[in-house]
């Protein structure tokens, strides 16, 4: 999912003595494999993850770890492990969100004789956690300013360099130094700002929004058209900030109850974007995502009250990239015309 893979690899490779296999990058083959074996009207992340699981099993892994909860995500692993068993693979799949984690992990370690360097755990846990935080803050800066870059590709190259340096870093303070160094570098990159800046907010379902393959590289495409982006959903938001903010959302929206998964957050963010003079909103989700379907009319209603244009995408394996691009281009042209 996005760039987070290297952090998980970094954490596990430093804590475990065993070999760790990175899943291959998601391609159209992954999706094809996944949808071949999954039920008809399940949401698309199921197909992506199943495809990835099959590919990593073929690379020779024994233990697969999955995290997720909230809506259907928490139940993925049970059906997926049944499907994979029926295909004849031998493995162990665990889900780490639905409670009982300590017991599950202890049993796993015993069963598979894993070699864990316990003394390293706290240190690397801290480093990995801060790494996620730093990566997210850098990425949101990139998203906001990449569209104005003078030299094409300078932001992407710098980010790649930063990730490479993150990988070889083994101390908390050194990590902080690297982060500060790169933040300065990012800020000193030359920008050409046009007279009228177009700002667009991206909201939606968490997997589709964070995995570049699943949304056809939406962010890069919009940045190339000179549109500055803001996105609220990222891993550090989901893991650490979300819980704290629910009460604030409810109070602000004058609602009584939460609405499941990211639904409430998306309504709040729509309102936030409308009130802070953003020029447009893009809502992106995988098809059949139940919580998002129900709130789409509400989001549309709020946006039309503030007269902010909004574009809905529902991504499936059959969504054609050309059709996607056409709609996106039309939306961007419309935003530009509105500005004039």
């Amino acid at each position, binding site marked *: 999912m996005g760039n987070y893979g290297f952090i998980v690899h970094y954490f596990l490779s430093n804590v475990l003595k065993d070999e760790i296999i990175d899943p291959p990058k998601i391609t159209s083959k992954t999706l094809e494999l996944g949808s071949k074996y999954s*039920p008809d009207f399940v949401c698309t992340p199921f197909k992506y993850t199943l495809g990835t699981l099959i590919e990593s099993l073929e690379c020779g892994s024994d233990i697969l770890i999955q995290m997720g909860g909230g809506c259907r995500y928490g139940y993925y692993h049970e059906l997926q492990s049944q499907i994979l068993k029926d295909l004849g693979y031998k493995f162990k799949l665990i889900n780490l969100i639905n409670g009982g984690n300590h017991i599950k992990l202890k049993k796993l370690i015993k069963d598979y004789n894993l070699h864990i360097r316990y003394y390293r755990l706290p240190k690397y846990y801290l480093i990995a956690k801060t790494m996620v935080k730093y990566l997210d803050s850098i990425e949101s800066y990139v998203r906001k300013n990449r569209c104005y870059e003078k030299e094409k590709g300078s932001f992407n190259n710098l980010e790649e360099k930063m990730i490479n340096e993150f990988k070889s870093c083994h101390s908390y303070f050194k990590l902080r130094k690297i982060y500060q160094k790169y933040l300065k570098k990012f800020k000193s990159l030359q920008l050409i700002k046009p007279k009228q800046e177009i700002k667009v907010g991206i909201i939606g379902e968490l997997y589709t929004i964070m995995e570049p393959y699943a949304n056809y590289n939406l962010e890069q495409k919009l940045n190339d058209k000179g549109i500055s982006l803001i996105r609220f959903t990222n891993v550090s938001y989901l893991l650490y900030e979300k819980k704290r903010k629910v009460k604030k959302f409810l109070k602000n929206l004058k609602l009584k109850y939460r609405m499941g998964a990211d639904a409430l957050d998306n309504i709040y963010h729509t309102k936030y974007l409308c009130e802070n003079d953003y020029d447009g909103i893009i809502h992106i989700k995988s098809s059949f995502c139940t919580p998002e379907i129900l709130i789409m009319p509400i989001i549309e209603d709020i946006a039309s009250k503030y007269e902010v244009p909004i574009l809905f995408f529902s991504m499936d394996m059959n969504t054609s990239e050309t059709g996607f691009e056409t709609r996106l281009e039309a939306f961007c042209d419309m935003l530009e015309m509105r500005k004039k």
Partner: protein
Amino acid sequence: MNKVIVGIPRGIFYYYDGVFWNSFFYSLNVRTIISPKTNKEIINLGLLSSPDEMCLSMKIYLGHIKYLEDKVDYILIPRIDRFDDYNQTCTNFLAIYQYVLHFSSIKILNYNIDNHHTLKDGAFKIGKELGFSRCEIIEAYKYALKRHQEYLRKKIFEQEQIISNNHKKVLIVSHAYNIHDEYLGGNILKILKDNQIDVLYSNYFDEQKANVKALELSPNLYWKYSRDAIGSISFVPNIDGIIFFSTFPCGLDSLVNELVIRKIHKPYLNIIIDDSTSITGLETRIESFVDLLEN
């Protein structure tokens, strides 16, 4: 005492605690209107007032609400989040109240079931909103609960009698709001009856026992109503065939039914219905399934 009219939409939640609320309001002497059985008009109302991709059952529920809107003073719309962390429900169940609240101006009688609130709290909340005293509410609650349990016991008893006879039997695994809705499930039941086959419903089994039995099939399942449904499968070991019945695109059934189908080794039929499913096609599928059972 001013006479208020409370509307109860005949969809989703009605099939779980409709009897309870009906007798609760009866005991309090409040006039209620239950929307008629689902028909073409209600479905069309529902299709107009809901997003395209929503599941058919929810569209029908919204249609019932729309139908009642100008006929009553209050509409009863619950919000069922979870009974505890291992007994959750579909995300639509917990968001639909907020959805109606956003788009409709009618007064809503709402109760909430989650980790800290039960049906009893809901009854007190609604009784208070309608202006009844504590004593009256307690009496009505007790009466309603008794009626609800009596109803369930009767249904379970009827089902046990069917199990003990020697006819050909089919178990229908489905959410209560799908199979008992005459527009959705009526055709299937009729075709089965024409072929002299007895029908067992997955929601008329002892809940607690079904919950335990469901763990054999799926140890990590955390949706209560799905667990009740698949728990029924282990109750009747010598069943002739199983029909899985769901609406398009139900989020829970897409995963749970697929898992169960992979685990059981019995004749089954998986029916997924949407608003344009043809009855003739359905008839052919069920009849060929029945033929299979008889051979």
